[in-house]
């Protein structure tokens, strides 16, 4: 499988180049450090590749627009909170039938080992049954391997809420996976 874990280490911070125009953000560095995790989070929330890409595009452009608008203390948290807002806006815009038919998560089914493909498909289907907030926490915990403290910081939640939301989501996910067995 050999997937890289981008966010387990401290992510690279985009550089603010000193300049007379109030500083220039290195968008490429910000993208390389955070886009993968943001994309998977958005994909799991939205279950739609195009919508996830559009939302990521908006999030990164938002970063450009606020150039000169003051220092961002925690860029990763800022981006995830912006991504979450974008995702929920997109969900409000979309039609219900699209939501029901979409089955997509952070897991790359095409790249799965044959032995894992059943689990990946089952997971995709089970995730589609969870509410978006629970899907998001599962994606951050299991997809990105983040701690509850990190998840809490990204979603602007108390750490206990992040942990309880995850446990609730995992229990429900498990029930859904088991119910597919019979």
């Amino acid at each position, binding site marked *: 499988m050999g997937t890289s874990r981008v966010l387990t280490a401290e992510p690279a911070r985009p550089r603010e180049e000193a300049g007379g125009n109030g500083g220039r953000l290195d968008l490429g560095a910000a993208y390389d450090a955070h886009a993968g995790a943001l994309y998977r989070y958005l994909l799991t929330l939205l279950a739609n590749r195009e919508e996830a*890409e559009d939302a990521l595009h908006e999030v*990164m452009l938002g970063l450009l627009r606020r150039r000169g608008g003051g220092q961002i203390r925690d860029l990763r948290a800022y981006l995830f909170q912006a991504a979450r807002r974008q995702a929920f806006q997109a969900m409000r815009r979309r039609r219900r039938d699209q939501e029901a038919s979409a089955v997509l998560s952070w897991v790359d089914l095409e790249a799965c080992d044959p032995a894992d493909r059943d689990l990946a498909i089952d997971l995709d289907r089970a995730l589609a049954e969870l509410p978006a907030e629970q899907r998001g926490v599962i994606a951050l915990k299991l997809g990105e391997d983040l701690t509850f403290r990190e998840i809490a910081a990204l979603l602007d939640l108390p750490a206990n809420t992040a942990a309880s939301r995850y446990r609730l989501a995992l229990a429900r996910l498990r029930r859904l996976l088991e119910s597919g067995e019979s």
Partner: protein
Amino acid sequence: MSEHRRYRDMTDEGLETAIRGLPRREPRARLRERILSHSSAPTPRRISAFRPAFALPALVLLLLADWLVLRSQSSGTPYSPSPQAAVAQAGPASREEIGLMRDLAASGLPLRLAMRHPSLQPETYLELRDRMLNEADGG
């Protein structure tokens, strides 16, 4: 079916480990290009970003407009040249203009206001003035 049975046999930790081991999707390469193309292009900025730049010129314009209004009100003259000066400078009024002013007056617009119309030609002004005087005499 035997393979499906594994979920019931798995502990939570086992399930988490199995899910963590699955390969993850990455955004398509062209998305990076699409996003980064904006950083070299002029930044799309919200209109609110321009507010500070607009504030001072807008304030100056507003004060200037206020001053002009107050000045014209206190002197009692319109912005256009005084009727006397206009009489001295301008040519005869066109028939259409006189008709327009008559229509305005007939529609209930007070003559005094009609006479302050900035495009009023001298002859029209004099005709309206006569009319106003006649009305005042008649009243």
